[in-house]
């Protein structure tokens, strides 16, 4: 309708969003929870306790200098969150088979290259293990840049007529600290818990119409010239708005306050919106199928945790082995996590992951349309 009217579905959605912000339940469940869990995991990752990464250091050079580098790395990283293995023959195969989380390779001829232009160490990464991959890249980079320093010192000594043999020993000082980790790509630490808590909060939103029926406000809404379709659309829109506000808050606070790295903002927002749409779909179906509000709440929360665990919401998006992992990869949590990881810093462009984004929207659209139609028939 024309005129100075806001569409009624938007009015209904706005009312629901306002109520959920006023009650603080949305912020407490879907924002504070994921931020706290994400931060705890980020900190645990940097300390000696908690989850760790196993990184293979593979010496393809085989000189005294390269062996010394391997030993030095093991010593430097001892007692920290990163476990170093020097007994891996084929780093690509080991990373693919997930025997190690990532690898650092000293290339053949590396010692030779030191005097001219040091060849960089190579990191072998698994897209599903973003943080160890980032650590391996960081280690490779640190060793390479120190080798370059040594080369500069050596050539300077030679130019000055000094004996350069005293500086040719590369003894890298490698540090993996909490600060390093927080600058690494750590969106999965926040997105994992967010994906679960968001499902809980959006389920509460999706049950709004059932609650309004019990509390009598739905009758008042229905006594106005508002169609059933508009009422259900408004409610769905409200659920999505709540999910979007919560996920954008988690994204913003973890980035601005905790230094988390998610990737290009536009990509991140598009993926978060798509994930919110998918969860709206599941929440709508649950409300439509459940006979009572407590039943809907039970189903919703069970599915939220099931999806979270199967989809690898805990510990950086690691997937489960075997069949569980295959099933888990179909969850919206896992799909969105993969999209985030693949478009993460240094990753692919968003257009490269369109099938993942499309899958999320398909789940959302199917759920909202089907669930909405069922709910409309039942309540209105």
């Amino acid at each position: 309708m024309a005129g100075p009217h806001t569409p009624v579905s938007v009015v209904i959605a706005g009312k629901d969003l306002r109520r959920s912000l006023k009650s603080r339940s949305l912020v407490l469940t879907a924002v504070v929870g994921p931020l706290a869990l994400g931060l705890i995991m980020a900190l645990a990752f940097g300390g000696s306790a908690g989850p760790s990464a196993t990184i293979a250091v593979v010496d393809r050079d085989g000189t005294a200098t390269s062996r010394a580098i391997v030993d030095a790395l093991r010593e430097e990283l001892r007692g920290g969150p990163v476990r170093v293995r020097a007994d891996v023959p084929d780093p690509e195969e080991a990373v693919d088979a997930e025997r190690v989380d990532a690898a650092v390779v000293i290339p053949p001829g590396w010692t030779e290259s030191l005097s001219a232009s040091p060849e960089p160490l190579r990191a072998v990464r698994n897209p599903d293990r973003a943080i160890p991959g980032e650590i391996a890249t960081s280690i490779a980079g640190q060793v390479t840049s120190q080798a370059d320093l040594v080369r500069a010192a050596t050539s300077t000594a030679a130019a000055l007529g000094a004996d350069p043999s005293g500086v040719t020993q590369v003894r890298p000082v490698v540090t993996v600290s909490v600060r390093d980790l927080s600058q690494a790509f750590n969106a999965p630490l926040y997105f994992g818990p967010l994906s679960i808590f968001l499902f809980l909060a959006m389920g509460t939103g999706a049950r709004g119409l059932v609650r309004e029926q019990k509390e009598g406000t739905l009758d008042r809404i229905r006594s106005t010239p508002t169609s059933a379709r508009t009422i259900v659309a408004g409610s769905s829109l409200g659920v999505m708005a709540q999910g979007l506000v919560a996920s954008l808050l988690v994204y913003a606070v973890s980035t601005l306050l905790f230094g988390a790295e998610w990737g290009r903002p536009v990509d991140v927002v598009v993926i978060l919106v798509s994930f919110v749409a998918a969860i709206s779909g599941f929440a709508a179906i649950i409300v439509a199928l459940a006979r009572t509000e407590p039943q809907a709440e039970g189903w919703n929360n069970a599915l939220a945790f099931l999806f979270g665990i199967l989809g690898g919401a805990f510990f950086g998006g690691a997937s489960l082995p075997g069949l569980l992992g295959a099933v888990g990869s179909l969850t919206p949590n896992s799909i969105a996590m993969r999209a985030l990881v693949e478009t993460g810093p240094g990753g692919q462009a968003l257009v490269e992951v369109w099938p993942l984004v499309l899958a999320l929207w398909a789940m959302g659209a199917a759920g909202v349309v089907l669930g909405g139609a069922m709910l409309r028939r039942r309540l209105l």
Partner: protein
Amino acid sequence: MTEQGPRARVVRCEGLRKRYGDRVAVDGVGFAIAEGETYGLLGPNGAGKTTTISMLCGLLHPDEGTIEVGGSPMTTGRCEAKAHLGLVPQDIALYPDLTAKENLSFFGKLQGLDRGELRTRVAEVLELVGLADRAGDRIEGFSGGMKRRCNIAAALLHRPSLLVLDEPTVGVDPQSRAAILDGIDDLRREGMAVLYTTHYMEEAERLCDRIGIIDEGRLVAEGTQPELVAAVGQHPIVRLAAEGDLTTFAGLAADAPQVVRAAASDGRVEVSVLDPTRALAPLIESAEAEGLRISGVEVVQPDLESVFLHLTGKALRD
């Protein structure tokens, strides 16, 4: 010679029927209300008042019957008829965590007011129900009476031609109750048609131009109060509060001279008589002869309560 046309009918319903399983909640109810008229639907709890109203307001689809509000058919979907309607539900239908103003703005937008109208109407309506100074407070902090008043305010924003109130004074202090009834009188004077349900006979007597008496889903009588009293015969009632076999005594008393009818309902017997001064002594004598222990005697002149008793054989409130 002046010719005054009949006032326009704002609502008309006919043959409304609704069943829940085997239970018939509303069984052939029909009435019409003209503009500026207050129509009372009087009946005990469970009589079918709320079910009737729910069908009338397009919340519930009737099994049978037709409804027209403001000249358009009422449906459970979006319809023109709903633009003429203001509903005050039986239970407070407001968001407790939003302020009075936020609640009214929300429902006003749904009723189709634009931004400009909304601002002035919210202020006017809050003023009307005496909540202007509490506009920014959440409903959950309101007293029962204030919630009731705000519940009414939310139905008035769009100046409906029909205001439907479902037992709006239940659980309200006497002062708020008087304010609510006065407010409804004012609205009626402005030409609004009012449908008012209650199980309080005094409210129906005080407020309503016409009254429909509803019991077990049926409209058992309809008219002005004097019409209703006249229709059932103006018989005073002798009310005996007593212990013993009241039902047997009521049966005996019904056959006694002077007695029109008699009915027992918990703890008392109500006997309609032609002349209480002559009927009283023999009644008490025979009650004592039957072994009843009488604890109170009262003579009641006919009112809606007695009309209801006459029509249904039971008390309006028990």
